[in-house]
């Protein structure tokens, strides 16, 4: 497989990989680094890629695993936690200057969901994958995905309504 074939095969879902990474790694920079790493891994496995019937699902699974690994490393290393706190502050500054504050509430609500629900919301409501595709990516049964998804959506709604009521009072 040469570079051109590789590019046409894997570039269409580059932004999906990026957005999933950003969902977990918070900052744009680390999401871009993650995307770069994942594409390097894909490139070094390029001979095997053609044997997978769904390269996109494979890449998304890789992204998921990559992000969870990074998070695990972060939580086990104090230095990294300090670092991420620092980045978080920057983000809060960004948020303060952002006019679209209400949309950011949703962002926060999704980020507070359990990892699995976060993944499913990202894959379904943002990227609009079918249940079968999500099943392939997460190695879960479609019924389990449906349940998690419903739970996640309801949690977001609940929290959102709570905040709004709080705002009115």
């Amino acid at each position, binding site marked *: 497989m040469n*570079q051109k074939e590789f590019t046409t095969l894997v570039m269409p879902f580059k932004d999906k990989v990026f957005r999933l990474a950003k969902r977990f790694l918070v900052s744009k920079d680390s999401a*871009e680094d993650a995307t*770069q790493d994942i*594409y390097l891994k894909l490139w070094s496995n390029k001979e095997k890629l053609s044997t997978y019937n769904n390269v996109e699902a494979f890449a998304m699974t890789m992204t998921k695993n990559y992000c969870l690994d990074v998070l695990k490393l972060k939580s086990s290393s104090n230095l990294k936690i300090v670092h991420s706190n620092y980045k978080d502050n920057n983000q809060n500054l960004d948020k303060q200057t952002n006019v679209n504050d209400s*949309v950011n509430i*949703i962002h926060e609500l999704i980020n507070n969901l359990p990892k699995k629900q976060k993944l499913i919301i990202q894959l379904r*409501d943002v990227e*609009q994958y079918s249940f079968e595709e999500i099943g392939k990516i997460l190695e879960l049964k479609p019924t389990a995905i449906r349940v998690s*998804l419903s739970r996640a959506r309801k949690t977001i709604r609940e929290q*959102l309504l709570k905040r709004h009521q709080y705002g009115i009072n």
Partner: protein
Amino acid sequence: MELTKIENLLESYFNGNTTIEQEQVLKTYFAQENVPAHLQEYKLMFDYFAQNKAEVSNQPIQVKTKKQTWNLKWLSIAASLVLLFVIYKMVPSTDNFTSAERAEAQRAYVESQKAFKLISNSLNRGNKTLAFAHDYEATKNKIFK
């Protein structure tokens, strides 16, 4: 009519029972500006999803590592060849003596063997005299226990 349809769709959306097409209907509905007040919260959600999907990475992906690995491969082959050559040069070869030198070495070997035999013989002669000493030691141990 339209509103009840949307409300029904929302209900099954939160139960996880909508298809991609139905969710698309919701998305397009909430993309418009005029949404009834009691549905404003849902507009926030769908707006967020749309915004999030529009986010792209501007960083170009670089996968041109092929050239580098190629160089590394040839570099390692060359390095191992050089190493082999150096080892070959450093270990003295045993096979480049002339026949005269070989004969000389053989003679020296025989001579030194002779010399060693001589030393060994005289040492053994000394050992025999020492045997008395051993006898003396044994008798002494018997007496002084």
